[in-house]
């Protein structure tokens, strides 16, 4: 216990605190000098950072300039000023909303929430249904079915989504089949925002279904058989036995799976990059990626602010489940 806790504190708690502190600061004023740069293609006038002068500023205040919560409210995040401006200048609610969802944070939040709220229940319901279905299969084909059901999880997302990306291309097998079904040769999943969203969600369900399936399946093995038999003797139908015995028994697992899925889905990131979906769908994690990796010299403050808001978002989403778990916990502890 202690080693795990200390590893968690060292590698997760401390970084979270330092990320929070970072998000309250911005970098020092960089001392810029006008200079000339020359290379294989001739010389141009340019500017460069006077690193010595900047270094001096940096050593005086190693964390950077204190910026309070200004990073949280700037245009890349909550964009208070822009929203107020849009509210005052826009003639109607529609154009106002257009303006708001043109801001990167809200654009990403819209997709992230939709994705989370669509994928999570689907994965739970389908996972439960398939677990029950597989459990009812004859023993001999049950093993292979479990194995096949786990496949979407086994294929590395990196390459799994690359292959799917190619399959849904207009020239790929799924894309071409869809064009045939809808009789529209110009149908392109990658060029339309709604279709791209649907595709990402379908991928999300496909990829995470094994998780809920196998958890529920393992849970089904622990259903008290005598209660179940008693219920059947009392004349309960299969369906009633399911809703009154099996599902209540699985409830702790349902909460567990919901927690995990909400958290993971809220951080949706990999499919967006692998499907090159940035044009149509951006998520909070993608914004962080963009600030840290794509920006050259990483914007730690921005990434920190978005990360903190992701955590807050997760906590808000989880609250109902957590309250339920808290009650459950107390009941069990007593």
């Amino acid at each position, binding site marked *: 216990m202690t080693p795990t806790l200390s590893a968690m504190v060292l590698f997760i708690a401390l970084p979270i605190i330092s990320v929070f502190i970072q998000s309250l600061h911005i970098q020092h004023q960089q001392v810029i000098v006008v200079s000339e740069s020359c*290379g294989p*293609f001739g010389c141009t006038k340019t*500017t460069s*950072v006077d690193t010595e002068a900047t270094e001096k500023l940096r050593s005086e205040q190693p964390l950077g300039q204190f910026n309070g919560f200004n990073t949280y409210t700037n245009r890349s995040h909550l964009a208070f000023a822009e929203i107020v401006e849009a509210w005052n200048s826009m003639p109607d609610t529609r154009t106002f909303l257009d303006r708001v969802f043109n801001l990167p944070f809200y654009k990403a939040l819209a997709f992230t929430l939709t994705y989370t709220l669509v994928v999570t229940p689907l994965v739970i319901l389908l996972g439960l249904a398939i677990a029950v279905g597989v459990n009812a299969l004859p023993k001999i084909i049950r093993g292979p079915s479990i194995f096949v059901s786990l496949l979407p999880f086994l294929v590395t997302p990196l390459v799994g989504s690359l292959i799917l990306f190619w399959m849904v291309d207009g020239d790929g097998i799924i894309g071409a089949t869809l064009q045939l079904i809808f009789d529209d040769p110009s149908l392109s999943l990658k060029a339309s925002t709604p279709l791209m969203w649907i595709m990402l969600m379908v991928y999300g369900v496909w990829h995470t279904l094994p998780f809920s399936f196998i958890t529920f399946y393992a849970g089904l093995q622990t259903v008290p058989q005598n209660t179940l038999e008693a219920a059947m003797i009392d004349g309960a139908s299969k369906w009633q036995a399911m809703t009154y015995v099996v599902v209540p028994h699985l409830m702790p697992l349902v909460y567990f799976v919901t927690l995990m899925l909400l958290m993971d889905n809220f951080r949706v990131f990999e499919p967006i990059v692998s499907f090159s979906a*940035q044009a149509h769908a951006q998520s909070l994690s993608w914004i962080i990626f963009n600030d840290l990796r794509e920006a050259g010299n990483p914007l730690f403050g921005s990434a920190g602010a978005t990360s903190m808001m992701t955590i807050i978002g997760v906590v808000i989403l989880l609250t109902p489940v957590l309250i339920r778990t808290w009650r459950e916990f107390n009941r069990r502890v007593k």
Partner: protein
Amino acid sequence: MSLKKLILAGAMTCLMGSVSYAAGCGPEAQSIRVLGSDFPAIQAISGTAKENCGAAAQEFTVTLKDNTRDIMNAALTPNPAEYTSVIVANSTLTQLMNDGLVRPLNDLVEKYGKDLKPNQLIKVDGNIMAVAFMANSQHLFVRKDVLEKVGISQTPKSVEDMIVAAKAIREAGIMEHPLVMNMKVGWNVGEVFNLFYLAHGGEFFKEGTAEPNINNEKALAALEDIKALVEYAHPDHLSQASNETQATWEAGKAALGIMWGSRGGAVLDNEGSTEEVTSNTVLAGAPTVADGSIPAATLWWDGITIAKNVPDAEAEATFAALVSAMTADMVAKHNDDAIWLLDGFKPGPAAAGVTETVVGGAKAYPMVPYINLMHNALGAELVDFLKGSESAEQTLADVEAAYVTSAKEAGFLE
């Protein structure tokens, strides 16, 4: 000196027979640790350096990773740094220089660089900060057989020519989407904007400052050019980068393309395509815009740097070893791996497009400390305009706003 002269000079040296000289490896028994991206030209340079000087060194490690750019600043910050040298390009050199992690090479060049050409030396404010060894740029790819079918015998020279050709191909019913460009959202689409904006003579920043300067007529013209071209590109173009555009080209489904010069060799080889496509593919200079003369391309170089936070002897040994690889012998062995800026390079058909683009006077990718932030803002915000959901003016205003937000955070603007 232009690349053309350089290539001619290279060819001359070849005719005279390459001169091999004993490589000087600098101080012995040092630790040499090189970090670079993983591609053939860098493999050739670092591999040859290791062959030459590995025995004299106490340790010689070469780490080639694709995400070099993501780890290099953290790797060079401690003292001593994890690596003694990082192999960089235009944009990544500024990333290291912003944090002051590389050292000026003036004295090392004086000591070991007598065979280097003046144009290999990357100077910033009078100091040599890197030594380049290869060049790259985007340029035009053309299927001459398809153009001939619609009665065009000349390779398009300008965006207008390209649009005329694309229109003719579409109207003749040969291809619905005859054009490919790397328009994938993010870095690629930002880069496409750079090509056309520079070709229109645009400047990204107000002179001598970090103030953005892209909400102007030239930027609008650049966006118009891009919009006019993607009209003929596949509807999926916002998800297509080099891998997809090259595959489309090799499948014979495109007749005009703006792609990377470093992909030219792969397009022309006998893998992944048909004889019909490869034998009719012509690599030409990047197109010009609006009756101007500047090709719509950015010129790139790759070169070596030496870390600041390492002992001087290690720095010297590393520099000497890497420079010892920049010879005609190495080029002769790896001629087709890159467009070398070195003696002995014999430009093949795959190099024609880049050469023409350089000779045409294309601009180098700007080496400005905050260009990465601008590029990032472009990559994220242009998509609304390209999807048609926003006006060009609004998009450019968004780009500036996004850039200003991040430049403030990075300390470039107040």
